[in-house]
């Protein structure tokens, strides 16, 4: 994939899956399938059973046979159906597209296989198969059905009226008064019976819609609370398992596993102004309770977005808002043992007030915009490359590419942060869209690893898990203790997992560029936070951009 590969696919996105992220459609994967660089984009269905639209982009001169199939967490590879072929998109070289049916709700993935005649290689991308929307009937279809229904009612009344009267007359016999009376009685009775039947049918339909609504995906409810203790502010987040209306066995909090070495990635963004951003890693108090000491965040109302992943592959984001009281806590006074070493936060200008920050502060950063450089606390600069047309447009796939330069203006040498060369968080100003991205895409890597491990073992997924979910949670806590005692390099190695990171590849862009494939789902004002590590320090940068309507 070329560095400046922009506007690759036009998505036909009309859906809003809302599980691992908020309001951001589709799953995007970028990586290698054998020797091929591929990008896979999956638009999961918004009703289950339904179809995912799968698009593959691959750089190859050869003609390839591309297939895709669903692999469910609980059914594994043994339970996959015959794969469907993705067909070349006419006029667009290297682009293949097709559909994959998702029959059951739950955690799944789509395996895309490429066969070039010599070698067969595949990648798989986690997809949560969940009903997320209920559609309204289009007026035109409504009118057609209404006309047909009226016609059916009219004919049925005629049939019943005739059945009770003229149909019983011998050939040639003419209807008399009695027969005519019977006709009207028949018609009247049929009107009453049809009215009752239609009323019953409507209730049946309504109950079906209600059931659908009940089982439609709803994020797990969570409640954030601030307590003050020993001169510090602590955030307690309680997940409410009882709020689950569907897939509760897959979504138990005891199934939570570390993703990038952490059980929970919590992002806090000050509501309205978006000028404060924090990436924290709360620890588990009990199966549904997580807590973290807050860094020196200014007071105000904050959005909480807490990403979790489970061993069942089911990843989701817990969402709440919380009021943080003002309290000036200096870093020096923070009990460092209580803050995770990977926790970080930044203060920038507000979204509305770009040119004239109200509170100029030595620590405050000014957000960049596409194409312009923004200076970071250590003197380095970050640039978000503008799209080829200058604007970002909703529903088009971009590679959001950031170029980092050291204070001398030379390409900077980035280091892995939580297993990746960079993390990006994107939010629209109204919080209707929130997403946490990696250079490999926007899927949960923890979920992918959990599924990979599960599929490699085969057999019955449930039988492989402890009967008591608490036992599983305890074993994960032990793993985390192990992580905390590990040298940092070793831990980064684990967090990078199976990622291919080949610096001998001539196309490798060094460690000064980090790029994230993403399609903004809707138009609006967005802020993008970029996080990376240089010289052992976590650095944050932020960019504002306005996304135009497609």
């Amino acid at each position, binding site marked *: 994939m070329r560095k400046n590969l922009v506007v690759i696919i036009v998505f036909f996105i009309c859906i809003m899956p809302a599980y691992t992220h908020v309001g951001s459609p589709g799953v995007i994967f970028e990586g290698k399938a054998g020797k091929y660089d591929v990008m896979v984009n999956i638009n999961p269905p918004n009703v289950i059973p339904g179809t995912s639209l799968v698009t593959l982009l691959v750089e190859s001169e050869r003609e390839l046979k591309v297939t895709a199939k669903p692999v469910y967490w609980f059914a594994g590879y043994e339970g996959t159906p015959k794969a469907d072929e993705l067909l070349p998109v006419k006029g667009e070289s290297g682009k293949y597209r097709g559909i994959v049916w998702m*029959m059951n709700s739950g955690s799944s993935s789509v395996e895309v296989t490429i066969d070039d005649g010599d070698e067969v290689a595949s990648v798989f991308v986690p997809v949560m198969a969940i009903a997320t929307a209920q559609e309204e009937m289009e007026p035109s279809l409504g009118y057609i059905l209404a006309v047909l229904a009226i016609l059916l009612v009219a004919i049925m009344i005629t049939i019943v009226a*005739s059945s009770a009267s003229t*149909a*019983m007359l011998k050939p040639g016999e003419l209807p008399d008064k009695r027969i005519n009376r019977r006709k009207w009685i028949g018609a009247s009775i049929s009107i009453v019976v049809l009215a009752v039947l239609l009323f019953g049918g409507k209730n049946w339909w309504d109950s079906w819609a209600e059931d659908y609504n009940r089982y439609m995906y709803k994020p797990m409810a969570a409640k954030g609370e601030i307590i003050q203790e020993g001169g510090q502010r602590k955030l307690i987040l309680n997940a409410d398992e009882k709020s689950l209306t569907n897939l509760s066995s897959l979504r138990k909090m005891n199934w939570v596993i570390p993703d990038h070495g952490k059980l929970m990635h919590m992002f806090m963004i000050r509501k309205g102004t978006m000028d404060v951003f924090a990436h924290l890693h709360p620890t588990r108090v009990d199966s549904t309770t997580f807590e973290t000491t807050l860094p020196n965040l200014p007071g105000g109302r904050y959005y909480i977005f807490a990403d979790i992943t489970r061993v069942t592959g089911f990843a989701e984001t817990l969402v709440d808002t919380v009021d943080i009281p003002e309290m000036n806590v200096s870093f020096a006074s923070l009990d460092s043992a209580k803050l995770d070493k990977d926790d970080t936060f930044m203060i920038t200008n507000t979204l509305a007030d770009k040119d004239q920050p109200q509170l100029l502060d030595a620590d405050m950063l000014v957000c960049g915009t596409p194409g312009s450089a923004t200076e970071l606390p250590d003197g380095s600069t970050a640039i978000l490359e503008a799209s080829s047309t200058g604007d970002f447009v909703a529903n088009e796939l971009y590679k959001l590419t950031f170029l980092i330069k050291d204070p001398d203006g030379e390409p900077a040498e980035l280091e892995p942060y939580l297993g990746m060369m960079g993390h990006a968080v994107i939010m629209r100003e109204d919080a209707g869209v929130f997403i946490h991205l990696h250079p490999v895409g926007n899927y949960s890597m923890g979920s992918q690893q959990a599924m990979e491990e599960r599929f490699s073992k085969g057999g019955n997924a449930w039988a492989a898990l402890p009967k008591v979910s608490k036992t599983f949670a305890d074993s994960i806590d032990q793993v985390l203790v192990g992580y905390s005692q590990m040298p940092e390099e070793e831990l980064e190695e684990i967090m990078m997992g199976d990622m291919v990171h080949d610096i001998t590849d001539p196309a490798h862009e060094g460690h000064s560029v980090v790029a994230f494939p993403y399609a903004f789902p809707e138009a609006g004002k967005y802020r993008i936070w970029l996080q990376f590590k240089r010289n052992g320090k976590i650095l944050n940068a932020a960019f504002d951009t306005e996304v135009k309507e497609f």
Partner: protein
Amino acid sequence: METIALENNKRVLSQSATATLGIPLYLYATVFASLCVAVGINWDISWHMSIGRDGLLSAPHIAVYLGAVIAGGFSAYEVFRISFWGNHTDKAKSVKFWGIFYGSLGSMFCIWGALAMLTSAPFDDWWHNTYGLDVTILSPPHTVLALGIIMVQFGAIISVLAVMNQSPGDMAAKKKKVLSAMFAISAGFLLCMVFTLVSEFLRRGNMHNVSFYQVSALAFPIFLVSISRAYPGKWGATFMAAIYSLFMMVMAWILPLFPAEPMLGPVLNRITNFQAFNFPILLIFPALAIDYIFAKFQNWNDWKLSILTAFAFVLVLMAFQWPFGDFLQSPYARNWFFAQESWYYAIPPDFEYRYAFQPWRVSSGMALLQGTAIAIGLGFISIRLGLAWGNWMKKVQR
């Protein structure tokens, strides 16, 4: 030249009348349409159990649409022909409706049925896009389709019946025989459709649960009894049940001969051929009982007759189906004849209760007694309505 041409036409007409025994062609068409939908629906269910995925124009769907088109098309043609080009005799044999139209009651049923089937297609498509592709038989759009099919099939019965009722005495024996057979066959296909509609309650695993008998008592007697009453011979219900049983068996024997591979995942049961829909339930025995009672107690009034028949239907069905349920769960039924190995691709084949009754779903003691009493009550309602309906059917002339 003109005379010769006329002579030729006459000859063709008389030949065709001999071939059809003077039975109107549209009657054959509607009975054939009834067969098409019965085959299509049975095949479609098997398709969904085995392959899972289908398109609008899958082979079973085409069979169903063909049935709708034939029944609706022939009937609509018949109505238009009589209304606008028909002679006085044609019109005198027809029902006049909406001021200008003339047609047989059977045609009206068929038109309604075809229109309902047509309506169900966009409705079902929207339903799937809104609530997901349902893997259930009983959903509102499927019910519209099923009602349409039942009406087409009922239209075929009524069409045949009207011709029989118009000339009961002076009919040639052969013609009478053919009409009776057509009547029984179309009634049998109707029973297949009714069974399909309620089959979710009538699975093997439910045969020791009283709800099986309650649903059966409500759904089947109304049809069996009305046909028994309207049929010119003694064994109407028996023929109807026999056609249903034979049809279900033949479909269960033929479909598994063809290869099939699941096209939707997860696939928990790897199958390689079509899975049969169902072996028929033993309706033949209560049907025999109905015909026997109706012949034996001709002089009883319909209320008294309904009570006796309700007891007979439920108890005879229980006496045969309950032990037959045990047999179907046994290894002796896992062969091509009984087709009990048939298993949906999305259910694990090692399911604990694949060949066993779930203990909590087996009715016993007072619950069984009370449930049976309720079944008899429901049967009584169904039978009484069926008798009234049968009495009406006997009188249909047009």
